[in-house]
């Protein structure tokens, strides 16, 4: 691993070193976002997304360091698994957070879902009261 300033190895090492440090900084960014953002939904953004790029860079660093072709499909599969799972878990947590009102309304400039939710809630309430009024 001794750096030869002109060789290809040096450049590969340099690139993977940069990738690793930037990937680690992405994790740090997620943690800073977790601590500094005011409500659950903004924390979601900081928490899940930088990891996509972070893991991509770290896996690319592994691929550069291993120098064999067959690790690349393995790394790509690992990354695609993450691409498929991250939005799903983010959506589930975000939806639960929105429904349980874990957000600060005063920080929203627009909320186009609220009217829809209230309309739907009013509709179900009406149907309930017309269907079995004695329960309410």
């Amino acid at each position, binding site marked *: 691993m001794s750096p030869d300033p002109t060789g290809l190895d040096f450049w590969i090492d340099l690139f993977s070193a940069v990738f690793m440090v930037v990937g680690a900084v992405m994790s*740090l960014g997620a943690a800073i976002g977790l601590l500094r953002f005011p409500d659950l939904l903004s924390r979601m953004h900081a928490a899940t997304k930088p990891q996509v790029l972070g893991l991509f860079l770290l896996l690319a660093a592994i691929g550069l360091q291993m120098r064999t072709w067959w690790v690349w499909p393995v790394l790509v*599969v690992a990354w695609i698994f993450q691409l498929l799972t991250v939005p799903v*878990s983010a959506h589930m*947590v975000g939806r639960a957070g929105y429904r349980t009102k*874990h957000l600060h309304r005063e920080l929203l400039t627009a909320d186009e879902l609220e009217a829809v939710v209230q309309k739907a809630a009013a509709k179900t309430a009406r149907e309930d009261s017309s269907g079995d009024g004695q329960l309410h």
Partner: protein
Amino acid sequence: MMQTVLVLTAVIFSLAAAGAIIRIARGPSLLDRVLAADVLLAILGGALCVDMAVNRHLNNLMLVVAISIIGFIGSVTVARFVADRREQPDES
């Protein structure tokens, strides 16, 4: 060069893990804690990746995949659970 990178990333990952743990301890709601635990798992996976890249082995690659899937299943399960528990008083 690799040793410097190893030390540097170790410091960054430790700071990030500390931040996530603070949020787990403080987090006002259950969902905050789940989110922070997810981040902690991702940081763990990232640290394993750096170890693999620096020491040039692939022993932990499947562990990284498993960790991200555990985080996924965990947060989805908790999100469903939270949504169900909070919704029931409204529906009844």
